[in-house]
């Protein structure tokens, strides 16, 4: 995991790419010297808030924009300056962009026809694609005569039909309702497994990213903040932005008491000591921020063994879990989340003095 893959294994190698819109120096810098390697056959997600540059990076790979500087390699070959129709890369558009004057089958056949494939091969591939996305009965419908979820499947089939080296997906699930989105997440994962094609998936939905990806790149303001597996991103965020953007996090200012190997002992507000994970190359003394997920802490009665103390200020019930807001005596609010079950009812009330016990190995020390 730690050793870098060689260039051969990389499907896409983005190195030192910047994109400035509107011309330097006054222009908008959408991507600022980005480098990232996307491995062959992996499901890679670009995750970030809107305007972070993730769609720009996707459009650069697809060929709809040219980089201001830097290189984009596809299996070792520089494609950065090729027009989109000369790149063996296909896109599933956010709006699907299905051709309204063509039938489902004609849409799927389009790319193969443009590549000049023989008619028999086109027919076979279209049949195979229709079967792959389970749309055989709809083959002769126009694309405005099918539902949103079905349009999504056709868009996928159309982009997969020419067997691209890389499939680009630009927030393809954002137009679907919640249930359909869940279904399509599983469907996408299945398609990626079956076809073995490298997927690059753009989303602003962290849950979607965590569910589907092999690896995630978290982006903000034209920079890549962290690249890693979903659990690396969630459990070991590299900085405060990542910790804040992915899931919920409590941030407490703390001080490094001592360091042992990759761990540090932190002094938290109120004087309690907690063992914390220290990212590689981080500083080993002075003030840091301790990041703790709400589900990695328990609410305990006052006086019980717990590092943090405060007053329960609010209880928010939300079905599967309950959020307890604790006003710490020496600091900000701290949120604790507990799973609900019928026989597991915590008997706390607002205004009560309580303690918070943090789970072992669940504190992350971050530089400010």
């Amino acid at each position, binding site marked *: 995991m730690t050793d870098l893959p060689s260039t051969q294994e990389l499907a896409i190698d983005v190195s030192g790419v910047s994109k400035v819109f509107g011309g330097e120096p006054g222009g908008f810098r959408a991507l600022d010297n980005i480098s990232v390697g996307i491995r062959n056959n992996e499901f890679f997600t670009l995750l970030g808030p809107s305007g972070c540059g993730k769609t720009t990076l996707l459009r650069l790979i697809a060929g709809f*924009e*040219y*980089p*201001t*500087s830097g290189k984009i390699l596809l299996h070792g070959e520089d494609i*950065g*300056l090729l027009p989109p129709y000369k790149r063996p890369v296909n896109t599933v558009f956010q709006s699907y962009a299905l051709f309204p004057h063509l039938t489902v089958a004609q849409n799927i056949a389009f790319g193969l026809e443009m590549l000049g494939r023989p008619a028999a091969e086109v027919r076979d591939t279209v049949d195979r694609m229709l079967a792959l996305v389970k749309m055989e009965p709809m083959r002769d419908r126009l694309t405005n005569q099918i539902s949103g979820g079905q349009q999504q499947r056709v868009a996928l089939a159309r982009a997969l039909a020419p067997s691209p080296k890389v499939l680009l997906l630009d927030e393809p699930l954002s137009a679907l309702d919640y249930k359909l989105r869940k279904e399509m997440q599983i469907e996408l994962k299945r398609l990626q497994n079956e076809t073995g094609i490298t997927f690059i998936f753009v989303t602003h939905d962290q849950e979607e990213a965590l569910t589907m990806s092999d690896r995630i790149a978290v982006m903000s303001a034209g920079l890549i903040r962290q690249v890693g597996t979903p659990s690396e991103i969630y459990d070991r965020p590299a900085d405060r932005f990542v910790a804040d953007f992915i899931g919920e996090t409590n941030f407490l200012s703390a001080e490094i008491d001592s360091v042992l190997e990759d761990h540090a002992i932190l002094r938290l507000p109120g004087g309690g000591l907690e063992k914390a994970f220290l990212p590689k190359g981080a500083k080993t003394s002075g003030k840091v921020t301790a990041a703790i997920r709400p589900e990695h802490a328990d609410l305990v009665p006052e006086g019980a063994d717990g590092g943090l103390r405060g007053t329960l200020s609010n209880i928010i019930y939300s079905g599967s879990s309950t959020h307890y807001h604790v006003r710490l005596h020496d600091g900000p609010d701290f949120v604790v989340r507990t799973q609900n079950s019928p026989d597991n009812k915590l008997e706390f009330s607002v205004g009560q003095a309580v303690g918070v016990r943090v789970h072992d190995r669940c504190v992350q020390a971050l530089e400010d």
Partner: protein
Amino acid sequence: MSASDTPARIAQRQKTRNRWLLSSPALLIVFVAAIGPLFVMLAYSFMAKGDYGGVKPWEFSTDGWFGVFFSRDIFDDTLTIADANVTIFLRSLRLSLLTTLITLAIGFPTAFFIATRPARMRDVWVFLITIPFWTNILIRTFAMQEVIRNEGIINTVLVATGITSEPVQILYTDWAILFGMTYVYLPLMVLPLYASMEKLDFRLVEAGYDLYANRIQVLRRIIIPIVKPGMIAGSILVFIPSLGAYVTPRVLGGGKNMMLGNLIELQFGAGRNWPLGAAISITLMVLVMVALLVYVRYAGRSGGQHHG
């Protein structure tokens, strides 16, 4: 290769070139067969008139422009106001303004009526307005001629009912031109008025009645201020072609009740004074431009108020 030749810039340059290439046929045609000749006409207005029409090329003269409002006596060189031309300018302005007012008076209630029909019927009513709009102006003028002539339906009814003992001469008077232009340009008033009334939110009207306004007050204080942009657009669309009308006054005015369009034609025909004709044309064009500018200014401002 200079530092500015990044691929992105090359692509941008290509795009710019393609845009100009693609638009050039249309731009060229309009320039050659519409805009360019206007400049030639401007040049002609500053040349001396030819003896049998046309101009004496390259002989500079301001006589054309001078002749728009003044005339010089052939014998004693005294200056007088060119009464005939001034009369025609004033008639053109008067008839155009009256046409605008009458079409507004008829068009406003009509547009209101259409806008208050059920959604599906509105298209039918609008279609009924559009049909005459696309019908040849000459045919419509001719139709009006038949109605107002001495043996026409109006006079027949007037005489038959005994309101007048003999036919009233309408044809070949200013009234005929006014009727004709009103008839011909009425759809141009109704369509933009309808476009703005269609968007009128009738909950605002209900709110007006709820706040004790009567029908007249609702009209004056709520409906008219909201649909004002449509009223202005319609007025401009009627006023401008009225000012430059040629066919309607020629057919219904019968030669002696000329408007600007006919005065221009006269200079290029029997009058054989092309520089004067060119000067009057440019004057007419400037009048239209001024009207358009006032409209753009006003529409821009009132639009800003509504959205601000």
